[in-house]
């Protein structure tokens, strides 16, 4: 619909410009001021209409962009990293089984690192299915225990 409207506007613009040139060529000496003025008047209004339409579209575009960049819309459009989900599904169990043996508190009975091991083991149990977190914990286990 909007395209049809724009096409009609363009058509009338072309028609009016033809009309004004025809007037100029046929009456080379005496210019019909009335017709010419009318054409200029119409052209002016059409220009104003097109400019205001474009300005309106620009404002809507800017507002939408701002809304999507900062508001809840951005959160809604934010995609979940499905690759991580796939790692969680297929790799987390294996890694968890490996790490729970490494940092089980029973291995540190009577040692200084007992408390740290308990803490890490607790965290490990809480993030059983989070592959990225498990990788972080693996690094911690390697460094701290």
């Amino acid at each position: 619909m909007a395209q049809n409207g724009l096409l009609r506007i363009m058509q009338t613009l072309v028609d009016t410009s033809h009309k004004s040139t025809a007037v100029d060529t046929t009456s080379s000496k005496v210019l019909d001021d009335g017709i010419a003025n009318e054409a200029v008047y119409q052209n002016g209004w059409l220009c104003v209409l097109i400019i205001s339409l474009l300005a309106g579209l620009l404002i809507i575009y800017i507002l939408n962009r701002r809304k999507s960049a900062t508001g809840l819309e951005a959160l809604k459009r934010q995609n979940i990293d499905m690759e991580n989900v796939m790692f969680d599904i297929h790799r987390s169990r294996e890694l968890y089984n490996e790490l729970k043996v490494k940092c089980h508190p029973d291995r540190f009975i009577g040692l200084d690192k007992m408390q740290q091991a308990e803490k890490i083991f607790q965290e490990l149990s809480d993030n059983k299915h989070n592959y990225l977190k498990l990788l972080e914990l693996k690094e911690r286990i390697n460094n701290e225990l």
Partner: protein
Amino acid sequence: MWYRVIEIVEWFGDLTERYRLVRDFNRAAKMSFVSGIAPTLLEAKITMGESAYRHEFSKWLAGGFRIKALAGRPLSKSELIELGRVVLDNKELVRKLVSLGWDTLEVHSNEGYNGAKWALKDHADLGGYLS
């Protein structure tokens, strides 16, 4: 009249989001299967869902998010539960599913008749905050 137009636009927006999520899941599953990360090929589908698990934002006749595992054998109960638990432990994903109108998570294998299903609203930690 305008609020009707906005409602229609939002409805289509949600529909796009839903299909995008399913498509992303399937694409990631396919890529992980091809690259050898995953031993089974997973596939997400939109199903009718369980009427007992419905909530206020459920989509009519499209409230089920089914994950089908193409394992070539019937999956055991523990495997089905493990697969479902991984998805349910991802709070962000569960909340997104709930907000997009899903109410049931279903896990099935391509063979056998066993499956598992959960009510998403019970695992979305409603009333709490995301950490």
